[in-house]
């Protein structure tokens, strides 16, 4: 069936602010869907409250509503826009739930709006545990066995039936599953059952077979209106059942299933999808497999785009969201081409000839007192994906992508002690893959590690092989590295940093690189082609490995490389991906060949049709340099953009500079001047700009001296960190001692900065751009919360609501002076505090800021694009003359932080200099009497702590 012509206008619902469990993967799916639908000639109406998204850009949709995601706002938009259809599968559970709720009210029907891409019935069945169970039973799909007990005696009978401990106890009808959980011992069983029977208002408990430790799998499905179903990707969880899949290390494709097992799973998945409705769209199905018997049970099914479908898209190259959107408007799979090959059909199942590893990224250090054990409740804030020809290579590359100081899976620092490893391995923690490697280093066997972790031995063998290579490296000196062995080492994903550390003698990363190149061992770049090279492919999507043939052809064009922001984390999230995507588009517009380097599978920047070339690679020095050297072989490298990818990209500026690689825009020495506190203070003094008295220290004693000199309260922070990590406000000497000791424990050898804390000051954020001469202020934001609450956690109002014109002029003048003095070419963000009408400058970041997408959305000015084009030589004058710098904002725009407190019930809700919010929403208000302003204003001091 060709596309439908009876619908013309489609409403697409986004997923709102980023929270743990629902992150920027929905910007990826939403913008892909919106672009696909527009290309088909449909009018796309988009609603989302998250300003830091590409999907809410004018480039993505015909009309964008930056409004909150509530039934009321959707109703208002629908009444105004009168769409023919609504596509709710691209915005996570938020969008699905909204669609379901409005359906129950009869709203869609009353408005004549058709739901496409999913059936309401499917949403309901998959959200209702009991209905799902019943349905699965009806279609003959096995599930975890269970039975209800009314007494302890009956419970014991059931226990016997289920084959003994462990089992899961679920008291019936208790709020939020109170009193439930897995039990491992008889004592625990007796206690939990008795207590459960008491707690349950109907005095019943469900005794359920435990699937803890079973192997866990996911399949990604697509179906068209003709009921053709294809499986895009299989994913095997390295971490077995018991850890949320969002917190699990996962691998694609499945590694340890025989074909018969895999096909049985495929059949079951298709049957399950068919049982929940006839809709054309995507589904994610999860299974658990008992390793001894091979028994397979269904865990859940999600009839929408998901975190896993984003991963599956990036892992295979198959654009799932785009195809799902086209299926939703009536196309069938056999009518669509495979965009990757351009010559074959989209109706097929991708085959890959590499291994993909995803590792989640957590931010536990942000939450004091948090329980770091990984459970069925997701805690990760982001993830990285790595592609390698083999599992060990992909695993090491994933560790290089995490950007937490590691250069691979260990082997770059002293090993922890036996006791530490034992304690750490007992329970699943974020660094489990590393602790397994450590255990092998200490002589543990595959059996021992399997007994503790239940991880499939095949994966453990692979890690053991990595350790065997480490041992061989330790026996050799640099000169003893022969080509064959070094190639093998590189094929196992080791970075030059790891090799340098492991070799005998004092060897540097540069020494290893030089030796490697002398031996002719350089990476090759292979294509992600959906078909294991069976057909030629056209998409320029590459990964690096150490093979014998290079597939990334270098053109003669002038090139711009854009460094991405890596994994999402608190303080550096989707905002920077937004900036990168705009950077790419802006450079493309000016005729450059754009090359994107990033490793975050949830992003739009890693969509293969954004940049001219995509390298799905760690934003890790060695890998970045490899790509630069490769691309530098022909044509001209105009330069590398480091201003858009947050601190991740900026951190590589020094090395780029040292290697003589051109950095676009603001020069490295000037960036360094802004980053280096003492130099920057000198600059402020020179410009006669006030700043809070400060001092620097390297020891606790020094810190106390500085604090006593400056006075209290005092702000303490490590240098070169992100999102205020480790930042505290101390009110006396004892606190200074304690905080500084903690920081030095976490970040040894770090310089500690101490600033006088301007109590009850008003915090101001300024985003600006400069072409080296002229400065343009894109937006000034006044925070509602007092200084002391991290700017990322503050409610920011644009334009300022209570600053005098005189103060504002000072702010503008200081911004201009600093930008000019730093010879900024591109973007700059300045943070200030206003106290008693004195404006103090706290810091200046010569790069795109977290608030830039908000400013762009609030004012309607494409700030990221302007910033990028300035870096590439354009002048502000050109934009001004074209009228592009004019703000379209009427009234106020408010940036509201959004937190994920519910994921960490043990952590008290407190705000301080350390950022804790995971996302943000935008609200447009006409006057300050609006609730969006009044509510945060009323409680502005409530949560401030240290």
């Amino acid at each position, binding site marked *: 069936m060709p596309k439908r012509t009876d619908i013309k206008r489609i409403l697409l619902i986004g997923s709102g602010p980023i929270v743990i469990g629902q992150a920027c993967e929905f910007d990826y799916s939403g913008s892909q869907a919106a672009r696909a639908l527009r290309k088909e000639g449909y009018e796309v109406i988009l609603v989302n409250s998250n300003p830091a998204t590409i999907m809410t850009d004018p480039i993505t949709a015909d009309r964008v509503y930056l409004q909150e995601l509530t039934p009321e706002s959707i109703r208002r938009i629908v009444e105004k826009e009168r769409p023919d259809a609504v596509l709710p599968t691209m915005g996570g559970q938020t969008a699905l739930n909204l669609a379901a709720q409005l359906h129950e009210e009869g709203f869609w029907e009353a408005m004549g709006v058709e739901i496409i891409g999913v059936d309401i019935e499917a949403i309901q069945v998959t959200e209702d545990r009991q209905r799902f169970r019943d349905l699965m039973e009806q279609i003959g799909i096995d599930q975890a066995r269970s039975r209800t007990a009314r007494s302890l005696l009956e419970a014991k009978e059931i226990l016997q039936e289920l084959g003994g401990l462990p089992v899961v106890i679920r008291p019936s009808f208790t709020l939020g599953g109170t009193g439930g959980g897995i039990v491992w011992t008889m004592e625990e069983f007796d206690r939990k059952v008795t207590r459960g029977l008491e707690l349950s208002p109907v005095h019943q408990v469900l005794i359920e077979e435990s699937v803890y430790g079973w192997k866990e799998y996911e399949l990604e499905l697509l179906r068209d209106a003709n009921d053709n179903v294809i499986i895009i990707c299989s994913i095997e969880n390295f971490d077995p059942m018991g850890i949320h899949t969002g917190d699990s290390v996962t691998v694609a494709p499945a590694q340890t299933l025989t074909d018969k097992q895999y096909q049985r799973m495929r059949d079951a998945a298709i049957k399950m999808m068919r049982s929940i409705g006839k809709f054309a769209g995507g589904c994610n199905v999860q299974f658990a497999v008992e390793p001894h018997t091979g028994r397979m049970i269904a865990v859940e099914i999600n009839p929408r785009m998901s975190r896993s479908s984003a991963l599956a898209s990036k892992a295979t190259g198959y654009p799932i969201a785009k195809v799902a959107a086209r299926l939703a408007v009536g196309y069938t799979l056999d009518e669509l081409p495979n965009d990757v090959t351009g010559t074959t059909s989209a109706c097929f199942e991708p085959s890959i000839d590499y291994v993909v590893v995803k590792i989640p990224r957590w931010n536990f250090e942000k939450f004091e007192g948090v329980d770091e054990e990984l459970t069925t409740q997701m805690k990760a804030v982001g993830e990285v994906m790595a592609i390698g020809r083999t599992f060990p290579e992909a695993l090491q590359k994933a560790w290089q992508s995490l950007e937490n100081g590691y250069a691979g899976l260990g082997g770059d620092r002293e090993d922890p002690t036996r006791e530490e490893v034992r304690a750490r391995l007992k329970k699943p923690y974020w660094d489990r893959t590393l602790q397994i490697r450590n255990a092998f280093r200490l002589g543990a066997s595959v059996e021992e590690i399997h007994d503790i972790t239940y991880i499939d*031995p095949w994966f453990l063998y692979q890690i053991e092989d990595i350790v065997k290579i480490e041992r061989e490296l330790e026996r050799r000196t640099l000169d003893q590295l022969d080509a064959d*062995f070094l190639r093998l080492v590189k094929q196992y994903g080791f970075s030059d940093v790891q090799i340098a550390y492991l070799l005998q003698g004092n060897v540097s990363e540069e020494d290893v690189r030089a030796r490697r190149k002398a031996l002719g061992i350089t990476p090759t770049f292979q294509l992600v082609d959906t078909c294991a090279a069976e057909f030629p492919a056209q998409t320029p999507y590459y990964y690096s490995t150490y093979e014998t043939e290079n597939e990334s052809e270098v053109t003669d064009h002038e090139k711009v490389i854009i460094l991405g922001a890596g994994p999402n984390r608190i303080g550096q999230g989707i905002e920077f991906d937004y900036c990168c995507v705009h950077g790419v588009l802006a450079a493309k517009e000016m005729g450059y060949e754009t090359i994107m380097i990033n490793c975050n599978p949830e992003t739009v920047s890693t969509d293969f049709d954004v940049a001219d070339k995509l390298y799905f690679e760690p934003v890790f020095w060695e890998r970045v340099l490899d790509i630069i050297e490769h691309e530098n072989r022909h044509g001209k490298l105009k330069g590398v953009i480091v201003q858009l990818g947050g601190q991740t990209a900026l951190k590589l500026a020094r090395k780029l500079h040292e290697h003589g690689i051109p950095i676009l825009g603001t020069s490295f020495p000037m960036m360094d001047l802004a980053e280096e506190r003492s130099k920057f203070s000198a600059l402020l003094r020179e410009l006669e700009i006030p700043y809070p008295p400060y001092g620097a220290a390297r020891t606790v004693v020094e810190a106390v001296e500085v604090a006593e000199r400056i006075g209290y309260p005092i702000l303490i922070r490590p240098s070169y960190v992100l999102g205020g990590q480790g930042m505290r406000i101390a009110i006396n000497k004892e606190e200074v001692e304690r905080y500084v000791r903690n920081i030095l424990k976490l970040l040894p050898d770090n310089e500690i900065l101490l600033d006088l804390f301007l109590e009850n000051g008003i915090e101001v954020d300024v985003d600006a751009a400069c072409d080296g001469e002229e400065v343009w202020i894109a937006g000034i934001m006044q925070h509602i919360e007092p200084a002391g609450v991290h700017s990322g956690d503050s409610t920011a109002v644009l334009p300022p609501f209570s600053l005098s014109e005189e103060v504002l002029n000072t702010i503008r003048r200081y911004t201009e002076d600093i930008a000019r003095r730093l010879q900024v070419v591109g973007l700059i963000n300045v943070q200030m505090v206003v106290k008693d009408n004195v404006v103090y400058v706290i810091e200046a970041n010569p790069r795109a800021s977290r608030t830039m997408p908000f400013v762009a959305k609030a004012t309607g000015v494409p700030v990221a694009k302007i910033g990028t084009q300035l870096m590439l030589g354009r002048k502000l004058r050109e934009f001004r003359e074209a009228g592009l710098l004019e703000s379209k904002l009427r009234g106020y725009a408010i940036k509201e932080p959004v937190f994920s407190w519910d994921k960490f019930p043990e952590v008290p809700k407190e705000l301080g200099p350390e950022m804790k919010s995971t996302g943000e929403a935008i609200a447009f208000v006409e006057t300050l009497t609006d609730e969006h302003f009044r509510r945060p204003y009323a409680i502005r001091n409530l949560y401030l702590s240290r």
Partner: protein
Amino acid sequence: MIPLLHPTPDPCKLALADGTVVTGIAIGHRGETGGELCFNTSMTGYQEILTDPSYYGQIMMMTYPHIGNYGVMDIDMEAARPMVAGLVVRAFSHRYSNRLADGSLEDWMRRYELVGISGVDTRRLVRHIRTKGVMNAVISSIDLDDEHLVEKARRLPSMNGLELASYVMTEQPYDFCTGPGPRIAVFDYGCKLNILRMFQARDCTVRVFPGYTPLNEVMAWEPDGLFFSNGPGDPRAMPQAIEQVRAAIRTGLPLFGICLGHQLMALALGFKVYKMYVGHRGANHPVKNLRTGRVEVTTQNHGFAVEAESVDPREAEVSHINLNDQTVEGLRFKSFAGLSVQYHPEASPGPHDSRYLFDEFLELVAAHRPATTPQLARV
């Protein structure tokens, strides 16, 4: 090479007839082997592929890098022994993980004296074949002289015009299973076991005859339907089998052919079969059923195909096409009751989307059987 990761790191070489030589590590049996180098893109099911008689005489290169992960299991055999001439992989798993497995792939290869090579850049070789076309190759861990090996590869006979079925077909007729359902006679040119299991699951009585058994001997068994199996080699080099199919058509019994059997049926009607440049080998090929409009994801393993233009519309209609290259994937015959497909509806390895074809064949058989025979329940 690297003793630390391989229990016995013997060097090994793979030489192609065009002069390409790559070095790796020997896996399985130490020795030398030769054949046409082909590849398969299926990510699971290596054991089924290695035992598929259609691959007889070919060197199998798996595009998925990790092979051997889950060991081997008796139930995954598609024939009594491996059928490929050799195995090429990127990263061989000496150690496997699967509680239900009967042993490691390494031991299994040694037991059946199957020669293989690991640690080579399979992707480059696939791209090489894709551009240059399939060619013969030699794997050796006993002769490591490049020139010798290339010369040996060059001397191997071309698959073009090669009859191979007689090497893999059963020597004696045997009964595979008995059931209350129709009696199916199988002409074995190298039949995969899972095809027989498909008939078994549908209650059939199945007798397997050597492919070249004279038709009257087969008819003496009083079959209700005739099946022409898959198998290796060039169908154009099998005039005897083509003649047999013609005779079978004259019996009026319903006929079903898979892969080589499909090609033989096409040739029997005067259609043309050609050798493909690369062939289709994988478990992800989309096939459209033109009668229903539905698409099935199929297992494919063929280097020859029926020429679409040569299909006489009076004799047959093209019932299935490949969505990637529009080649003929299935025929439904008009002058007699019968169907044939180029791909493998029995899968193993591969998706189970196409099993309905066995039901369709058995429907033809049921419709043809005398009314006295009781009708059977479908599986």
